[in-house]
């Protein structure tokens, strides 16, 4: 007691970093050395409550890395050893982030599974010690509390969270192909019940604070505060801390119980879960569902089920062991590497590498209120951009306005927005038939029909009314931007912004620059795209840019495979079982047969034989029969309102029969069919990099996965080449080349990679 006080007074003189919180008695109980400075964690004492503050240096977020962990343990050991301290509060000094998760690089740098297992076990031990703490520890959560951060929080005795939009809790590990490896799989089921724990861990979804309270994931909520005598964020964190300290005191004084009153449903669920038979049924059900959804392509979800099951059925020792081992196994899988690669890629594509534009675009104008135009409007208005939506007809405009309203209203139904917020967001949209107000526009995005002469007409009309600084962006999936810009008075202000349908769901935005597009125009387009919440790749102009160009040869192969007599349903199941989210035949229907025809004709002209394969005649005949896909109700399948099961359009039999070509038996096994599709895709993607259409393989992977549904478990075409082996792909291509000709000729860059095995797209 006396000793520690002496040390305390000594350190008070030295540890000036502790004095950042005036009003608290700041002490360091550093038992070993009073001079040691901590960089990630510091703590002060309020009465008999230790307030531990997490603040990773030089970063917007806190991540659980080795230094943070060791400093945390050091601090906790001091707290446990101190006589004055009776409880503790754990809080982040960063508004908007509690702990965003474990450090991925720390895991990635491990070479062997044993290393990873050890890492996991260290985490498990640390959190177990925290869980068994005799002094109550309150986690005060404001901002992202994800992955390892959540595992830390649920090891504490009590959790208080700020009820704002930034505060989310979740276990996103599954999205990286791994599992919560620091006790999460064992603690979470006990805390929120097995079904809810499975839901969290298998979907990786973010849970908002109010939902977390209902689930029992947090014990109290704190409302975010408005302005007072300090900025709101600062005061809110302070208030959260004050409330947490009150609860920590209450817990140590035994005035507050950590036991939670369970609702009737919860009680019934936990009773049901005590019956082994019910549990077995649940494991079975969940596993079936996972198998169905992942087609066995993703190992992580199954392992999660397995680990949870082990913990519940065989006790926590077995559970922890299983967790750490399975965690290690998963980190070594290709799938995990692919998913983590995508994660990094996504982070990169959420940055504007062109810098800040000279003038921030605040007023948008969108031409064409079709599916795309309205979609672009929706993702713009809800970010506060004033948006004009212009169409040629009142009916078309009305349809577009309704689409935006419905998109917002669906969010109200899901309680992501209030009806008032919806109205206020909707007021950012101005629907009109004329060019009124265009003189204020900072950017015009045209989403009119894909017809060059129409685009030219629109461009000229718009240039007559917009101010000098205004950017003209064309949303086209295949028309070369330089051809559109040909009639422009100011080609440096013309750029391509290729959105994907449905715009509010698809994350990707492909930005296309011509030789003449200025850097500031690009910077501005990227800034708008980022504001709209998009993941962005910037590519060079050329027929089909990047995404459409990769898709086209694959689609051509789809047609050939159908002509060879493979049923659409069979083709769909082959593609989805390879990891594509949508079957190939269905994809044609979704994109629109007329669009597909348009694109394949255009690109066929541009690229010639290499884009051959199936006959465009198939698409032409479908268009002439009115089988345009989902939008016309018939394509390869029949679509009816309210009917979920898809039936094959039997009228297609005649068309397919008339265009039938004999299959070649040595390249028509199920696996060959899958690889014929994928290798053509990958080959074209690599060629885009070779030709400089793509700047980086990362953008190629992100574009393919987020825009075209390339199997995420493969990580994108470039990651796939790295992980699968360039040689193997070249071998495949050569085999198909022998059967079909130059369409399968591997490109030079791919051959280079095959011939020198050390060459990788991602080092």
């Amino acid at each position: 007691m006396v000793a520690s006080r002496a040390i305390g007074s000594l350190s008070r003189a030295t540890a000036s970093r502790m004095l950042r919180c005036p009003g608290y008695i700041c002490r360091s109980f550093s038992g070993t050395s009073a001079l040691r400075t901590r960089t990630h964690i510091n703590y002060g004492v309020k009465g008999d409550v230790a307030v531990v503050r997490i603040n990773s240096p030089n970063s917007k977020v806190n991540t659980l890395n080795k230094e943070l962990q060791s400093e945390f343990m050091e601090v906790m050991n001091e707290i446990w050893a101190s006589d004055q301290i009776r409880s503790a509060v754990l809080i982040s000094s960063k508004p908007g982030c509690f702990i965003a998760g474990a450090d991925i690089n720390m895991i990635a740098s491990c070479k062997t599974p044993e290393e990873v297992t050890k890492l996991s076990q260290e985490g498990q031990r640390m959190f177990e010690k925290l869980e068994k703490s005799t002094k109550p520890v309150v986690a005060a959560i404001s901002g992202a509390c994800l992955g390892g951060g959540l595992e830390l929080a649920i090891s504490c005795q009590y959790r208080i969270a700020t009820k704002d939009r930034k505060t989310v809790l979740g276990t996103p590990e599954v999205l990286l192909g791994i599992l919560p490896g620091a006790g999460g799989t064992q603690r979470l089921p006990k805390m929120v019940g097995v079904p809810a724990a499975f839901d969290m861990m298998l979907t990786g979804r973010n849970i908002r604070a109010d939902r977390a309270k209902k689930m029992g994931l947090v014990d109290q909520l704190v409302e975010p505060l408005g302005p007072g005598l300090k900025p709101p964020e600062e005061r809110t964190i302070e208030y959260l801390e004050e409330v947490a300290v009150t609860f920590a005191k209450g817990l140590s004084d035994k005035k507050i119980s950590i036991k939670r009153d369970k609702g009737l449903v919860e009680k019934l669920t936990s009773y049901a879960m005590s019956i082994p038979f019910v549990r077995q049924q649940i494991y079975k059900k969940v596993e079936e569902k996972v198998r169905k959804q992942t087609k066995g392509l993703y190992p992580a979800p199954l392992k999660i089920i397995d680990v949870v099951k082990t913990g519940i059925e065989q006790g926590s020792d077995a559970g922890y062991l299983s967790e750490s081992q399975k965690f290690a196994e998963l980190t070594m899988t290709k799938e995990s590497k692919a998913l983590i690669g995508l994660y990094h890629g996504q982070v990169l594509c959420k940055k504007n590498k062109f810098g800040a534009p000279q003038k921030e675009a605040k007023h948008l104008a969108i031409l064409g209120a079709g599916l795309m135009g309205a979609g672009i409007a929706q993702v713009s208005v809800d970010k506060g951009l004033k948006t004009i939506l212009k169409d040629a007809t009142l009916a078309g405009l009305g349809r577009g306005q309704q689409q935006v309203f419905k998109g917002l209203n669906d969010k109200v139904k899901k309680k992501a927005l209030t009806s008032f917020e919806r109205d206020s967001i909707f007021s950012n949209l101005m629907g009109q038939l004329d060019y009124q107000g265009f003189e204020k526009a900072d950017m015009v995005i045209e989403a009119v029909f894909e017809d060059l002469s129409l685009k030219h007409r629109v461009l000229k009309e718009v240039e007559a009314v917009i101010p000098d600084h205004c950017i003209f962006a064309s949303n086209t999936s295949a028309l070369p931007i330089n051809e559109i810009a040909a009639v422009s008075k100011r080609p440096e202000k013309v750029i391509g912004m290729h959105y994907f349908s449905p715009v509010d769901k698809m994350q990707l935005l492909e930005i296309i620059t011509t030789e003449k597009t200025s850097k500031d125009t690009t910077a501005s387009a990227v800034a708008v795209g980022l504001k709209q919440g998009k993941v962005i790749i910037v590519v060079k102009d050329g027929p089909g840019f990047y995404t459409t160009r990769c898709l086209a040869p694959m689609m051509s192969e789809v047609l050939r495979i159908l002509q060879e007599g493979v049923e659409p349903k069979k083709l769909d199941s082959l593609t989805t079982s390879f990891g594509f989210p949508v079957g190939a035949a269905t994809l044609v229907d979704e994109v629109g047969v007329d669009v597909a025809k348009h694109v394949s004709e255009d690109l066929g002209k541009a690229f010639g034989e290499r884009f051959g394969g199936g006959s465009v005649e198939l698409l032409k005949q479908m268009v002439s029969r009115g089988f345009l896909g989902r939008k016309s109700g018939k394509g390869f399948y029949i679509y009816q309102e309210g009917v979920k099961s898809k039936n094959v359009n039997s009228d297609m039999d005649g068309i397919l029969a008339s265009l039938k070509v004999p299959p070649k038996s040595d390249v028509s096994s199920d696996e060959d069919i899958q690889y014929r599709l994928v290798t053509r895709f990958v080959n074209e993607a690599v060629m885009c990099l070779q030709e400089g259409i793509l700047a980086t393989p990362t953008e190629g992977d992100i574009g393919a996965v987020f825009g075209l549904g390339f199997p995420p478990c493969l990580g994108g075409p470039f990651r796939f080449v790295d992980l699968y082996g360039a040689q193997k792909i070249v071998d495949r291509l050569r085999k198909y080349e022998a059967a079909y000709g130059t369409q399968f000729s591997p490109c030079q860059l791919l051959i280079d990679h095959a011939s020198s095995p050390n060459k990788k797209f991602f080092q």
Partner: protein
Amino acid sequence: MTSILTYTFKNLPNTSKWALQFSVRPLSCSSQLRAAPAAQTKSKKTLAKPNMRNIVVVDGVRIPFLQSGTSYKDLMPHDLARAALSGLLHRTNVPKDIVDYIIFGTVIQEVKTSNVAREAALGAGFSDKTPAHTVTMACISANQAMTTGLGLIASGQSDVIVAGGVELMSDVPIRHSRKMRKMMLELNKAKTLGQRLSLFSKFRLNFLAPELPAVAEFSTSETMGHSADRLAAAFAVSRQDQDEYALRSHSLAKKAQDEGLLSDVVPFKVPGKDTVTKDNGIRPSSLEQMAKLKPAFIKPYGTVTAANSSFLTDGASAMLIMAEEKALAMGYKPKAYLRDFVYVSQDPKDQLLLGPTYATPKVLEKAGLTMNDIDAFEFHEAFSGQILANFKAMDSDWFAQNYMGRKTKVGSPPLEKFNNWGGSLSLGHPFGATGCRLVMAAANRLRKEGGQYGLVAACAAGGQGHAMIVEAYPK
């Protein structure tokens, strides 16, 4: 405002002896307390403006403000308004036919008397030739009624205005659900038995669930008490400070009542019941008792309780406002001039109750006065926490610079000049009627305590606010 629906102020034991002791106890909110400046010289001798009509309040009255669910519970809103109007007639002896226009404020409308001003005027025996309309602006509805009248007089449209306000929280419109209403309306139009039966077949039991009047701000879905609690937290106003302020309000109200200072109150003989002569919500308690209450909105750790919030109140008020020359011509001795006023509005989420902070510097600037010129402050007390948060906001340069676009703070009002005869916390707060009470309290205080300028300020739902300068009429 309506958020207080569920919380009344009944639990507090009436320990007035204690209260007297406590009223002399120094209050911790006395950080705002300043030594009164000895001899004040006003920035301006009067606020009269050339080429502008002087507008005076001849007198104003209110029926006793009662906790809802007490003596007024069986009446209708226009009954209360009628009583206030009758009281005004009696007090001023104004000939009914010279009144040009009648304006009333109200918040929760009784659908049968949506223009309650007209119904009450007719019922109170005013001329059926005098037009009347009703205004609504949440807790500053009566203020809006008065200032609408000021506009009519200033622009020369009228000379004599009766303005007032009424609220009856004992009865609020509880509606059928939208689905039920829709079915009933369609049933009205159904002609054949078949049509009716098919409509009946669509009936579901949940149609019967009633729709209560909104207990929350429409735009944010947040109840006012909840917002007040967050506001108090944002300005770090403690529970104890809030309780002490509430106790001050009750103690001062009690004192004013006992000393007969609340001269604007007129008795009301309630049909079938005894005559009501005084406000019944004034209940000075003790800090110990108040500390026992649980938070009413943010549970379990909030600071706003039933004891430090204003309670649901029934009541009505009315004022006779005239052009000065008209009043003098009729031989009246007016009580006060009504001078500059402002309305302000701000973020309804985080600054819902900061109206006075925004309105005060604005109205002072407009009138060319400073805080030191004000002798009587009459602020609407929605919650203790709200008042104390406003004090802190007014006293903060940071807040003034970052949120109000002003260079410096306006400063918080000196407590010894502030709500000296109690406030909404203790006297009660019939939403639509409080504005007139504030103005009359300021006018009567200036007459009684001496002094020239009074400042009235109030916050209102929707994130709005109001302030007005009242100038004492020379004796």
